[in-house]
């Protein structure tokens, strides 16, 4: 604990334990938050941060331990009870209703005795005070991620919280939007509100927070003042061991054009999808093209079009190794040497309830040892699942478990390995390390770089700018279905890319 602070903390968690079946998500966690401080809760994916804040928000009940609010023991049986005490929450995955308007989305979160008469006025007032402009009558699905987050924050602020919890708030924001958010948070803290800021981004913590509690494997491993620690120090506390840095090849001679897409436009998926507008791109052998962008700007549509999950009408508008493949489906494009990894692990890249060997069949129908003459060889599939697991260090409970029982990192290594072991000439991968622990992320990124060295052309779609800058040779930005001109990684910087992510035009000259 940091010494020298006087008085009773606003909230004190004492030896909180949360168990999900055999998994111990939180193991005797102690945490204190004081009024007016911005307290960081650090930890990598799977460290138990989300579980802990869900307990604090009343969404989950702790298996053991106690919560003291202003010195009194309390039971937070639901988010309603937590809100009544003065705990507000901004979720990483927005709890919004896409079909409803902004005002309706806010109205549903207010207590029943709160009048809705002058709601629009109140939204405007809070918006003005904290720089959170909103149009109350817009349907939510028309808004950008940044605007959606504003609804979540206004929702919480209307209830005048004493403690505001923010779960990975910058993960969907551009660097510029994040700056604006930090301004809002500082204003709030100055007004006496306590903030619990959950993240795994260390530079943000150093910039914003006065105290930090670090979780690893469900336990508190350290509590410190992040301003006095180095980023490296914080990182090794978080990860527990040094994560190997990426070995990038200094010289990679790019080769022939592996994949080309010319002027493709496409309607968005479902009623809320983002349409693609005249997208063109290309990637060469031994080259990694990174596509940055805030989530929901057309990434899944772009992936669907590039992979052939949605074939396009004009054959010539998509080329693999110079051959037109526009009308071909994903399986035929695999036949041309391409491989794909979609964003969602469970439900898209893998069938949750099916075993790993069954999941191998999904994208390996052309592997003769797995499928022959329309018949599946179970032994062949099992053998391949095994070699993927060995090659990529996939940790699993038993020989052939269902995909859903694997941790995020291990399953991601499996679905990436499934494609890489094929030795593809083209790999298109959407969010390669989203929600994955640092060790698995390093393994995956290294394997991508190594694959490029062997002559594969790779396209990486990612909302993680650090990742984009770490592995790409060329960077393009997708915003509102439009793709920017790719630029070399050495000819641009985070600010320029960030500006493109907000739809800013000026950044073109940064190259």
């Amino acid at each position: 604990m940091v010494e020298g602070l006087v008085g009773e903390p606003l909230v004190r968690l004492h030896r909180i334990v949360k168990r999900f079946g055999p998994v111990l998500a939180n193991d005797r966690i102690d945490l204190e938050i004081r009024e007016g401080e911005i307290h960081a809760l650090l930890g990598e994916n799977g460290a138990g941060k989300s579980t802990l804040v869900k307990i604090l928000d009343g969404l989950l009940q702790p298996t053991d331990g106690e919560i003291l609010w202003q010195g009194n023991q309390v039971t937070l049986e639901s988010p309603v009870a937590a809100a009544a005490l003065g705990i507000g929450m901004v979720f990483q995955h927005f709890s919004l209703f896409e079909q409803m308007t902004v005002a309706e989305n806010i109205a549903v979160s207010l207590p029943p005795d709160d009048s809705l008469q002058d709601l629009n006025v109140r939204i405007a007032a809070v918006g003005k005070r904290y720089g959170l402009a909103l149009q109350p009558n817009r349907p939510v699905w028309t808004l950008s991620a940044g605007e959606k987050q504003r609804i979540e924050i206004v929702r919480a602020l209307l209830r005048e919280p004493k403690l505001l919890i923010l779960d990975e708030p910058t993960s969907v924001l551009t660097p510029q939007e994040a700056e604006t958010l930090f301004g809002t948070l500082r204003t709030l803290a100055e007004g006496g509100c306590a903030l619990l800021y959950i993240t795994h981004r260390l530079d943000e913590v150093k910039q914003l927070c006065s105290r930090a509690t670090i979780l690893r494997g469900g336990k508190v491993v350290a509590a410190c003042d992040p301003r006095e620690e180095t980023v490296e120090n914080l990182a090794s506390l978080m990860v527990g061991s040094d994560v190997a840095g990426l070995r990038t090849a200094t010289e990679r001679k790019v080769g022939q054009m592996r994949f080309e897409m010319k002027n493709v436009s496409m309607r968005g998926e479902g009623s809320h999808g983002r349409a693609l507008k005249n997208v063109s791109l290309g990637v060469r052998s031994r080259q990694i093209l990174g596509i940055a962008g805030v989530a929901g700007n057309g990434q899944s549509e772009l992936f669907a079009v590039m992979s052939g999950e949605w074939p396009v009408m004009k054959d010539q508008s998509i080329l693999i190794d110079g051959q037109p493949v526009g009308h071909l489906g994903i399986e035929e494009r695999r036949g041309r040497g391409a491989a794909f990894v979609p964003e969602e692990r469970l439900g898209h890249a893998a069938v949750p309830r099916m075993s790993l060997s069954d999941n191998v069949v999904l994208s390996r129908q052309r592997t003769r040892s797995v499928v022959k003459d329309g018949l599946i060889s179970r032994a062949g599939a099992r053998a391949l699942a095994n070699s993927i697991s060995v090659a990529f260090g996939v940790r699993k409970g038993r020989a052939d478990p269902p995909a859903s029982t694997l941790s995020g990192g291990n399953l991601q290594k499996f679905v990436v390995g499934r494609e890489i072991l094929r030795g593809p000439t083209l790999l298109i991968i959407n969010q390669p390390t989203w929600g994955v622990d640092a060790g698995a992320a390093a393994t995956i990124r290294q394997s991508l770089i190594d694959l490029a060295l062997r002559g594969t052309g790779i396209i990486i779609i990612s909302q993680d700018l650090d990742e984009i800058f770490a592995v790409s040779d060329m960077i393009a930005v997708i915003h509102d279905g439009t793709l920017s001109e790719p630029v070399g990684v050495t000819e641009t910087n985070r600010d320029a890319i960030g500006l493109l992510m907000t739809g800013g035009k000026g950044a073109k000259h940064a190259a």
Partner: protein
Amino acid sequence: MRLDIEPRAEVSKLAQILSPVLAVFVAVGIGGLIVLALGKSPVQALFVYFIDPLSQSWTLQELAIKGTPLVLIASGLVYCFRSNLWNIGAEGQFTVGAIVGCILPLATHGMDAGPWVIVLALIMGAIGGALYALIPAMLKVWFGVSEILTSLMLVYVAQLGLDYLVRGPWRDPKGFNFPQSVVFEPGATLPNLMSDGRLHAGIILALIVVGISWFVLTRTLFGFGIRVSGAAPKAARFAGFNAKRMVVFAFLISGGLAGLAGIVEVTGQIGQLQPSISPGYGFTAITVAFLGRLHPVGLVLGAFIVSLTVIGGESAQIAMKLPLDLTTVFQGVLLMCVLAADCFSTYRVRIVSGGAR
């Protein structure tokens, strides 16, 4: 107080096998209570329903006769339900299969045409059912119309169509104005398997279908595609299984087998067309499919249990004056119990004191 459920990471094989068994026991218990409420002895009912039909040769044959259409229809339904398509119009596809299948037997009536008639009749019946199932399938593929309501509506249409035919153009002119067709000639009926009984060759067809179906669903890429389409549609798309084609195939198979069941029932069991050719086999098969846990072999056991209740229900009506509808109630209860038991195998269920959620 509230009910808490929590997904199990893995469903054990044992739980998968035991849960339908448990469901049958619970359903029998509830059925007993209903019998008690009707003022009859549940013990006697238990015997009449579940023991008596197993004690005599002719009732065992009846069991197989009733089970045949159920197995055929449920085998097809498994393809739909496994790929998360809700074909609830098997009753209609059954009826259309019977109608289309009867075209040839009726046209060749009195010509002493020989056994090729029955072979073609079976094929035409299957095709008729398949094409009828194609209607909801295409409406779903082309316009995105929910298959649930369209397939069900088509049941009524098919039944009215049959009604029209047997009262109109296909009525036996020498049938004393009864609404029924002529009685098929021997060449147009399925052969009997035993000299002293009604068991016909349909059961063999049904078992062949079960075998093929097991192979297709568990061993082939197509069967894998069906399973993936239901379990995770996006993963099916990723694998390259065309969703629309899957809808069409699942409905064609399902409708084809229901149609085959229809023509088998008419040419094997009834021997002529009547306004009513099914005591709701198309709906009962839904219970059968779920009771068999949507497994191509499991449903044979499901059909066995359900046929028992059908025959038991008929004899209970005579022996105990229990209404026939009791069987329908029991089938509904059984389906509910199977669905509930499914939950206990996929989730951990606890009763917790505390507020409602």
